[in-house]
């Protein structure tokens, strides 16, 4: 398979050339998946934390559901969002099908359960340590949730990154609701699918390598941020 060597050469050439189209595609990938990550954190973190600290009937059913939803197939999410946003669907009037907004919605639905389920576990573990203190000080639950989320922030960063990773790597949802339209909704994964279908396997693999480099950069940036933050916190 000469495709491998060719792909590595191409991948580096692509990155170094800073090709305009490639930058646009990378920019859109980051914009869509980071937005989805932020939205999912805004919903998933409080949701996960409230499930973690509250006791109510059916709680274990909710936990099982959240965990199961982590396995939502992207293509099913894409289909559901398509049917919602289609001109024949209930939200057709929004006119956002085949736009980055539709892609952000689809990815948010995909990763919110991941953020919620994982943060539920993280917060619950931490809450076991704090519970007695909260009780003795009669801390109201919304304050407790805030304190727990803040104290678990470094672990939750990893949770957010897991969500980002899932979002930036999926193709099934964005190709249906985005349509893989050149210069409008083409992201890294749909571009890879396109080049594969054109039979240009070397270029497809090269784009895959570029995607991995981006994921590496995002994770590296967050880790650096985290260690700087830790240093500040304990300085």
């Amino acid at each position, binding site marked *: 398979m000469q495709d491998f060597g060719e792909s590595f050469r191409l991948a580096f050439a692509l990155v170094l050339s800073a090709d305009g189209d490639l930058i646009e595609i990378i920019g859109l990938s980051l914009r869509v998946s980071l*937005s989805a990550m932020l939205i999912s954190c805004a919903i998933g973190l409080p949701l996960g934390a409230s499930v973690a600290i509250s006791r109510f009937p059916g709680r274990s059913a909710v936990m099982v559901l959240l965990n199961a939803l982590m396995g939502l197939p992207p293509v099913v999410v894409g289909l559901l969002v398509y049917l919602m946003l289609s001109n024949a669907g209930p939200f057709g009037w929004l006119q956002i099908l085949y736009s980055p907004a539709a892609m952000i919605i689809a990815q948010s639905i995909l990763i919110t359960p991941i953020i919620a389920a994982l943060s539920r576990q993280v917060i619950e573990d931490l809450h076991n340590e704090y519970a007695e203190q909260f009780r003795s000080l009669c801390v109201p639950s919304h304050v407790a949730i805030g304190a727990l989320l803040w104290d678990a922030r470094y672990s939750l960063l990893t949770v957010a990154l897991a969500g980002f990773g899932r979002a930036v790597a999926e193709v099934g949802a964005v190709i249906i609701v985005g349509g893989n339209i050149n210069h409008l909704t083409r992201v890294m994964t749909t571009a890879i699918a396109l080049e594969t279908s054109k*039979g240009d*396997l070397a270029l497809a693999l090269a784009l895959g390598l570029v995607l991995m480099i981006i994921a590496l950069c995002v994770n590296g940036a967050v880790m650096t941020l985290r260690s*700087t933050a830790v240093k500040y916190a304990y300085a």
Partner: protein
Amino acid sequence: MFERTPLTIGLAALMFLATHAMPVQAGETSIILQSTTSTANSGLYDYILPIFKKKTGIQVHVVAVGTGQAIKNAKNGDGDVLLVHAKSAEEKFVAEGFGVKRFDVMYNDFIIVGPPIDPAKIGGMRDALAAFGKIAEAKAVFASRGDNSGTYKKEMSLWKAAGLDPAKASGKWYRETGSGMGATLNVGVGMGAYVMTDRGTWISFKNKAGLKILVEGGDKLFNQYGVILVNPKMHAKVKTHEGQAFIDWIIGEEGQKAIAGYKLGGQQLFFPNAQPGS
């Protein structure tokens, strides 16, 4: 709670990046063209759409899916213009009121590609029906689209005309990939199978390793593309003016010339055949 730690500043920067990384598209006029992978993958649109945009300022966004899905999307009103290749399905689309009128745009032809060892001995044949008969007789591996695309519909009509039912051999020598043309060709390359493909996709396909054209030229393999404006009476959001402008252009002199002008490796991929004044 939100002290100015590097963490919060970093998150704020991320948020800014996420929302401002790309300028929002300014209010340019654009239409959505529901079309097929065979035309998009061949690079035709990358060649002709800039010419159209230069003339009219209208940006055409192409959603490239199989003909069946393109028609379904258009029925849902998720597109302004439909350009596909399954004449009877297109005529049905218009007859049901989803489309305004159908126009011929261009044609090319289908070919049957396969491994050079050619186990069914169909190399050099022109009659697609006879070739399909030999493939079935030899139980030679055949990779089919197996979706609802124009190419698949054509393939089905050929099997039927040859008096054969490949579905009986589904999973044995007859393999339905359920994917696009390029993906099916990749499968064909992988298992040395026969594949029926449109010539445009084949010429632009870069992973031909191990497959070659075996059957071409017969009149049964004609591949006609048509264009239809989605009916604004069904979906008020259809951009009638811009969509009609695109259709007038592509079936007019300039668009037809642009289609004929698209060549890959010296070969013309599509042959314009709109009837003037139709």
